[in-house]
């Protein structure tokens, strides 16, 4: 057998395990039966047309898009500050502050959700889409920092020094030299935050009040067996969209690394 042959067999088996749910999803989305079980009965696109006639769904999509776009922009902005600070400067309490900022990466989301809920209700803030955004920015920021740090790290500091020597100010150097070089990282971080926020359930479940978001809507539909085929159709659309978004994000991430002359270490994390 070839080099690493058994490993390859194992790796392919593992990919099958990873992709199993995603392969099954379109099978039921295009299946004619109302019950989600085998054997499949026949091809149909009726769940996709039923999906388009759901009024709550379109509201949920609109809400989720608003939350995801706003959270992505805010989280990436905060991420730029933190990634720049952590890759460029040494300062007191750096480890502690960075640790706190990165904490949501491991903290269970339900803890973020309940602690924000308690504080917001205690302050008399009424729950809305904006309260969801507060939570989503918190959990997206660590991911943006992970992406942006590698973009800032592969930046050659002599370029920046050259700009200063040629008389540019700190602000104009940032705008003219640094920003264009890390732009691919910024785009990739916007897309990743958007994807995380769009898919996030627990925080929205606790903090959205009566407004539906897409995951909250999907979760509520699981209670009605007759609504599930429509959710399978919706899921198929979402999977296709996220694969497209991720491919774009990956493209920009690689281009960013190539642009600043770094070596690709692979992966988003």
């Amino acid at each position, binding site marked *: 057998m070839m080099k690493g042959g058994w490993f390859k067999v194992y790796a392919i088996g593992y990919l099958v395990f990873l992709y199993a749910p995603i392969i099954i999803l379109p099978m039921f989305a295009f299946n004619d039966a109302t019950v989600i079980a085998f054997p499949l009965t026949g091809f149909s696109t009726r769940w996709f047309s039923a999906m388009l006639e759901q009024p709550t769904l379109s509201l949920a999509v609109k809400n989720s898009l608003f939350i995801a776009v706003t959270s992505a922009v805010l989280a990436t902005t905060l991420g730029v500050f933190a990634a720049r600070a952590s890759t460029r400067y040494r300062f007191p309490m750096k480890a502690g502050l960075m640790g706190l900022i990165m904490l949501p990466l491991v903290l269970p989301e339900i803890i973020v959700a309940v602690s924000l809920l308690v*504080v917001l209700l205690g302050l008399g803030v009424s729950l809305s889409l904006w309260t969801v955004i507060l939570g989503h920015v918190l959990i997206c920021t660590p991911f943006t920092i992970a992406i942006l740090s590698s973009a800032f790290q592969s930046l050659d500091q002599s370029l920046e020094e050259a700009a200063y020597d040629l008389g540019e100010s700190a602000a104009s150097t940032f705008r003219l030299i640094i920003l264009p070089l890390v732009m691919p990282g910024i785009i990739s971080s916007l897309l990743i935050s958007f994807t995380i926020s769009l898919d996030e359930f627990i925080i929205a479940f606790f903090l959205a009040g009566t407004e539906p978001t897409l995951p909250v809507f999907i979760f509520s539909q699981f209670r009605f067996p007759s609504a599930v085929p429509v959710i399978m159709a919706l899921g198929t659309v979402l999977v296709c969209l996220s694969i497209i978004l991720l491919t774009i994000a990956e493209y920009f991430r690689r281009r960013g690394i190539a642009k600043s002359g770094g070596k690709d270490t692979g*992966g988003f994390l």
Partner: protein
Amino acid sequence: MMNASSRWAKLRQTEAANGLLMISPTALYAILMLAAPLGTIVLYSFLTDGYLEIIRDFTLANYIEAWTNELYRSVMIRSLAVAMVVTLVTVLLAFPIAYFVSFYVAPSKKSLWLFLITIPFWTSYLIRVFLWKVILGYNGVVNSGLLGLGLIDEPLTFILYNVNSVVITLAHAYAPFAILPIFVALEKIDRSLLEAGQDLGESKFMTFRRVTLPLAMPGVIASVLIVFIPTIGDYVTPQLVGGPEGRMVANLIQLQYLKLDNYPLGSAIAVSAMGIVTLVSLIFIGLNRRYLKGPK
């Protein structure tokens, strides 16, 4: 006045001040939206729940209830056990993949493999969990497959709505989180060390055990923590595939907050769970600290 402003100007030029200034928006956000709320639930856990309001009386009653009530205690122990089993399974299954991608895949194809591994992770978590219900269910993929092959006579029922299905689903959900840190650690290993090991007469297996594995341990430790800590607080998986026997601590917290409206008890359970997670993680790090010292 002159003096003060020039001192300020000088301070602004130091690296420390620039760094602090640069990080301040993000740090401030994390302090206000994360540190302060976490402090608040710790505070709430010591208060008394009154009807429709929180009474500002210091008490340990919530903790006593959270730790002595048979139901709460069993859910807590189950969550801890499930998180440990999930972590073990996930990391053991992930290691060979990380090893394969790092040591056997051509450098130009590594990114593609990592991309393939991470894609499923970015697709709707709720729908993925729900699909495990379809795979493991009474008329599901596993049962119809096994029935079709004639390996079983009637559908298996022990694979859905219990702890087993929770473990399978969570092991699937956290797979990329386990693979990536191990991969990064393996990538850092200087390949000449492995050649040296074999040149000095060690077998392939012994080289792996005495060189590769110890050097990969920081990655393994990171992936254990990154799987273990969020797993114990997962809400969706136990709710959808766990059934009554598979409920975990997050379901309990949700019940206290949103259904029973008992914030102090909910906070005490949440704080206890976080305390246990922190303690277990610190013990784990302590046991493995010799691997974390880094190169001399």
